[in-house]
């Protein structure tokens, strides 16, 4: 055969199938481009200029993996859809005398053309757009960046390798399908006999149980720790439940409706119910995919947006004071050395601390069992979510009096209590680690405002009679961790100066003690950078992956519309011949199509509704306690997403109607 024949045939095929090929090609290009972006951001040397580059790099590295895995699954899925549509064409070639080997060669050329185009355009656009993306990320991270252009060779190589492998895999899969099938089967291809789906009660049951279980976990999980560990269980349960819901439950419900004669044999319901049964059979998995992707997009974007918007609030919650110096396993003498160094640094930068509080305390984590509290040591956390973790701190009376400017007195065994827990009901006694404390008064306020923001963990501050009492607690219970020397203050002044001063403070102070870990400096201005970069990075990732998922959703919807269109065309021709008016046919079509395409969205929104309490707790773990903000972010995200979804629907529906149009409209 003449040279270049298969190449031209392949080109011609792609041209003829452009309705399905073009979106596939676009998806390939976008996937390559997005992969390059992500990989570029991970490997970009410009990133290293940031003080907390590691955080962002880890997040971006994670994103690269997500995109890689997603690309494999998704491109594989779309390719197999394409092949299914083209089976008839392949069968025809086969019958017209092309051997399978020849078809394979033709497909090889198609894959090569497609791979070359996607890699070339994808990486090209990736390189062109990478600077823009980088600047956008820096803007999100509130970090100024030097200009410059950079091409990451490693990213290009990675992209070539990954997507080359994906294309090879899809090609092998195509070959497998061609070789497995005989020509007659290929010819019949996509129009195999339509069997009415059976109700699969087991799946219905599993679906309901999984969905119910997932929802139950999401709604009832109280403790933050449990929220983290149960989150993935809930996600998997809901995912399984969603698949069952679409595959089995929908068919079961429709069949029940069908059995209800009075309902079924009505003009409005007749075609809709039976039509829906088949649509659900063919589209259930696709719809479930759309639903899960949509849920993912909504969760990702709403939480990351919320964290990004609430980042300032998180920081002030986390750092009530500008600088908070804590020294562990030390004594008066050691602490005064730390303070000397500190004073020197502040003087260097010409900064004057304000509103200083110095106090000693013992801090411990306890298990609140209602009538008594057990001290927890190290990493042991309760597996049982019903038992609550609480924080307890002992502060000597003299430090309290000094900080508050009061002159109270206490006897040994007595304590003043400050707590964020509501409803102490005037309890007069607290039992902590086997020791009983008589509460003489519940304080309205305390000089330290640590952790007041966290409403999920109860904190108890006990002001006790003397430092000696603290020492005896530390002696009796090694798990208590010993006395902590604490100095908190605010620092007025230029933020840029503060950052530098705080950086130096951290460096110098840690050199004072033998173990650097024994002195901790929490400095708001300095740590702000790391918060901004973490939450900015997450926000960026959220939007980025959100867009990727959205693209996938759009493509699945488009292909759905396309395949439905071809199948429905004949059906509506018949209905018209049997005596349905054009208007009736059109109404019946649009109601079914609307139902099919907005079902996943509605389900996704319901998922989000149930996920809300769980997500709220996870956000609390990241120091965001503003439920109102999260609600607004979630609703906003849902609103935007619904608009985009509707736009995608409207655009793809045009293609659908154009296909059906040839007979009906």
């Amino acid at each position, binding site marked *: 055969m003449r040279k270049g024949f298969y190449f031209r045939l392949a080109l011609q095929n792609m041209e003829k199938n452009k309705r399905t090929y073009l979106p596939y090609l676009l998806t390939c290009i976008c996937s390559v481009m997005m992969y390059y972006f992500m990989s570029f951001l991970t490997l970009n040397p410009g990133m290293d200029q940031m003080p907390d580059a590691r955080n962002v790099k880890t997040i971006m590295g994670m994103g690269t993996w997500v995109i890689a895995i997603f690309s494999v699954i998704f491109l594989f899925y779309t390719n197999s859809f394409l092949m299914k549509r083209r089976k008839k064409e392949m069968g025809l070639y086969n019958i017209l005398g092309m051997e399978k080997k020849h078809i394979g060669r033709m497909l090889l050329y198609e894959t090569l053309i497609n791979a070359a185009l996607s890699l070339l355009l994808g990486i090209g656009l990736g390189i062109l757009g990478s600077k823009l993306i980088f600047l956008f990320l820096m803007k999100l991270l509130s970090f100024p960046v030097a200009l410059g252009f950079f091409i990451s060779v490693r990213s290009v190589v990675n992209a070539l390798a990954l997507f080359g492998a994906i294309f090879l895999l899809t090609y092998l899969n195509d070959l497998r399908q061609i070789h497995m099938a005989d020509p007659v089967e290929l010819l019949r291809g996509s129009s195999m006999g339509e069997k009415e789906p059976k109700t699969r009660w087991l799946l219905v049951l599993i679906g309901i149980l999984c969905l119910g279980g997932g929802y139950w976990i999401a709604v009832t999980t109280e403790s933050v720790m449990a929220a983290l560990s149960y989150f993935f269980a809930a996600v998997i349960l809901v995912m399984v439940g969603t698949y069952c819901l679409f595959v089995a439950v929908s068919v079961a419900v429709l069949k029940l409706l069908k059995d209800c004669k009075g309902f079924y*044999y009505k003009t409005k319901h*007749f075609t809709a119910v039976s039509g829906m049964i088949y649509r659900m059979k063919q589209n259930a998995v696709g719809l479930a995919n759309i639903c899960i992707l949509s849920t993912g997009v909504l969760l990702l974007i709403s939480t990351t947006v919320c964290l990004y918007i609430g980042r300032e609030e998180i920081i002030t919650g986390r750092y009530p004071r500008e600088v908070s110096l804590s020294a562990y396993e030390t004594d008066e003498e050691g602490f005064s050395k730390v303070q000397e160094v500190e004073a020197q640094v502040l003087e260097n930068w010409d900064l004057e601390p304000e509103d200083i509080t110095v106090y000693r305390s013992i801090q411990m984590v306890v298990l609140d069992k209602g009538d008594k509290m057990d001290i927890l040591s190290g990493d042991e956390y309760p597996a049982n979510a019903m038992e609550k973790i609480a924080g307890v701190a002992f502060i000597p009376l003299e430090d309290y009096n000094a900080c508050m400017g009061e002159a109270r007195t206490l006897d040994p065994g007595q304590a003043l209590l400050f707590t964020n827990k509501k409803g102490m009901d005037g309890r007069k006694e607290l039992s902590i680690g086997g020791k009983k404390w008589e509460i003489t008064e519940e304080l309205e306020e305390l000089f330290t405002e640590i952790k007041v923001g966290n409403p999920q963990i109860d904190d108890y501050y006990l002001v006790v009679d003397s430092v000696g009492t603290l020492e005896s607690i530390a002696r009796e219970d090694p798990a208590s961790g010993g006395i902590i020397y604490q100095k908190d203050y605010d620092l007025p002044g230029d933020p840029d100066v503060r950052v530098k001063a705080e950086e130096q403070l951290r460096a110098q102070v840690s050199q004072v003690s033998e173990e650097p870990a024994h002195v901790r400096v929490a400095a708001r201005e300095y740590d702000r950078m790391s918060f901004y970069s973490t939450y900015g990075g997450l926000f960026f990732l959220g939007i980025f992956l959100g867009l990727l998922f959205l693209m996938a959703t759009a493509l699945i919807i488009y292909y759905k519309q396309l395949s439905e269109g071809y199948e429905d065309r004949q059906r509506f021709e018949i209905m018209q*011949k*049997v*005596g349905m008016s054009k208007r009736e046919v059109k109404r019946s079509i649009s109601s079914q199509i609307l139902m099919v395409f907005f079902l996943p969205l509605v389900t996704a929104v319901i998922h989000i509704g149930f996920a809300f309490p769980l997500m709220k707790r996870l956000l609390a773990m990241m120091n965001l306690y503003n439920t109102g903000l999260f609600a607004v972010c979630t609703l906003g995200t849902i609103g935007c997403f619904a608009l985009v979804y509707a736009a995608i629907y409207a655009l793809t529906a045009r293609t659908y109607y154009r296909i059906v149009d040839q007979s009906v409209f």
Partner: protein
Amino acid sequence: MSILEVEHIQKVYTTRFGGNQVQALTDVSFQVEEGEYVAIMGESGSGKTTLLNILAALDRPTRGQVVLDGKSLSMIKEKEIAAYRRKNLGFVFQDFNLLDTFNIQDNIYLPLVLAGESYQNMKSRLHPIAQQLRIQEILRKFPYEVSGGQKQRAAVARALITGPRLILADEPTGALDSRAAGDLLTVFQKINEKGQTILMVTHSVMAASCAERILFIKDGQVFHQIYRGEKTDEEMYGMISDTLRMLATGGDHHA
């Protein structure tokens, strides 16, 4: 009395950009009496399908009119045409046109459901028709589960169930093997004996030979017609064959 009057129908198709005009029907006139069984024959391209589409009100003639039961089809409003078709006409197609999403019974019910009949009413109507067409056994099955002959009998049941004035059959034996075709033609003859008017378009000599009257169409007009009278199916078969041979070799205008 004539149930259907076709008066000087002409149909001209114009290509999309104006340019060429194609005359599918030049001038067709004929009548169908109540209870008649008429076959229309012609080669492909002779305008049979165009004629049938016009009779079914799926298409409108360029000139002339179709009068069904004294009412001109062109007088019916666009909005009412579907309901009109549903009530007065029953269709049987070459490729059955059963919906694969419905079982046989629901396919037969379809026109009644569209007309808004109650379920009880539908059920009582289905029973005698199903018995007559011998499809009681397959009512619960789906189109892909039954044979071509059974599908076509189901399609006939769907056409009959509304009690139409006229049954229009488009090449009903076209997709059937000879045994199933013979079967179907017997069904047609039986329902015709009960008074059902049937108009069938076909190019199968065997199918046409069962009819009482055969119209031949050539070049967009009625060229010739044959009445059965007292002739047997075999004699009819011979006459039709002769006529077709004459049509193919060219001949004078007869009708």
